[in-house]
């Protein structure tokens, strides 16, 4: 029963290597994210949180388990269908921004809409609107090399929002940013949270986690702790690993 679950995973596993050198990047993870929730996944380096995010977004195929996104099962989808899914339902934000160096900010943002088949005029207008929303309206014609780290990430976030995604997945969005830039991005995430955008953020910075509705700690590929920040005292501790 998916109900209003935006993201759902059951028994999700990602294994690398063979018998002798088996690595379980993600180990039998169960997860349910209702629509509108802002979820932060924290954990030390190498605990598999980025891999989990990739699996949830269809960027990688799990070796075991099932993933549902907006009610559709994605671990068995073809690459082509996954591409369409990413186009219409998922927005990605990465640690290293992944903007095109030769395109201006507005051209970067409108690319997502152009790939979705939108006419160029509409794509451009939407891009400008989104840049305005993230506070970069005056930098629309700047190349990424002329933007600061925080500004670049904000352009990336605008791009992720371009096709009105059902869920935004962010992988260490402030990993490459200094303190001031982190604050800019934090503010944006807080705003997204208040607009009921389903958000899953992987981060090692507790500040980001702190603005989420729910924080999950991950260790060695499995969940160790699940805290809902809105209500004091609620939280689950996963005993599997103890």
């Amino acid at each position, binding site marked *: 029963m998916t109900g209003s679950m935006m993201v759902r995973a059951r028994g999700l596993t990602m294994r690398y290597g063979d018998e002798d050198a088996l690595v379980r990047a993600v180990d039998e993870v169960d997860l349910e994210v209702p629509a509108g929730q802002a979820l932060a996944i924290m954990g*030390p380096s190498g605990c598999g949180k980025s891999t989990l995010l990739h699996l949830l977004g269809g960027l990688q195929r799990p070796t075991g388990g099932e993933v549902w996104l907006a009610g559709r099962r994605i671990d068995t989808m073809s690459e082509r269908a996954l591409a369409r899914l990413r186009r219409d339902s998922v927005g990605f934000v990465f640690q290293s921004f992944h903007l095109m160096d030769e395109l201006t900010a507005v051209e970067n943002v409108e690319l997502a809409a152009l790939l979705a088949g939108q006419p160029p005029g509409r794509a451009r207008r939407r891009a400008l609107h989104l840049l305005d929303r993230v506070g970069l309206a005056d930098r629309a014609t700047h190349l990424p090399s002329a933007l600061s780290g925080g500004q670049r990430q904000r352009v990336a976030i605008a791009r992720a929002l371009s096709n009105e995604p059902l869920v935004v997945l962010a992988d260490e969005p402030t990993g490459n940013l200094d303190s001031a830039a982190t*604050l800019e991005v*934090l*503010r944006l995430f*807080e705003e997204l949270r208040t607009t009921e955008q389903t958000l899953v953020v992987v981060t090692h*910075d*507790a*500040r980001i*986690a*702190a*603005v989420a509705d729910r*924080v999950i700690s991950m260790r060695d590929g499995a969940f160790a*702790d699940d*805290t809902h*920040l809105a209500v*004091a*005292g609620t*939280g689950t*501790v996963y005993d599997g690993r*103890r």
Partner: protein
Amino acid sequence: MQDVVLAMLAKEPAHGYELRSRMREALGPLGETMNAGQIYVTLARLAKAGLVTSERADGLPDRPDRRVYALTPAGQQRVAAWLTEVSWPKPDLAEFHLKLVAAATARLADPVALVDAQRREVLRRMRDAQRAALDRSVDPVAGLLLEGVVLRLRADLEWLEECERMWTEHNRTGRKAGTA
């Protein structure tokens, strides 16, 4: 608190209520939780120590908040010395640390569970502080204080994660060895 109050009087004498409002302004949202009477108690102590003088203002009732306070030369000296001090407030983690040790030794509770609960609480505190800091209506100077609170809490959270790791390991080896 004492030095802060002295410093606020360094420029010119001020009424009690002025001092209080100035302090609340500088502290921003954190200032709201400040005890109203705290500052007057401090002023009384300072007066006793001879660092400030307190006078009754003309035409105003004789209440601590209406009195006019001014620095004495001794007070001035103290302010000058305080400004150049570089001592930093020590983080006090000893109490919590000892709590965990006690719980483990006396088998009162699972230290890991304690750490988890504490982490959750610290996380919630951090969330409140962070949300307050992000609020655009906060003036930048007060926002700076909130930033400092958030960053300190973040450091504390990191330490708590270390605690959890170590105590989990401790539990595991304890179980293996068959002893506590």
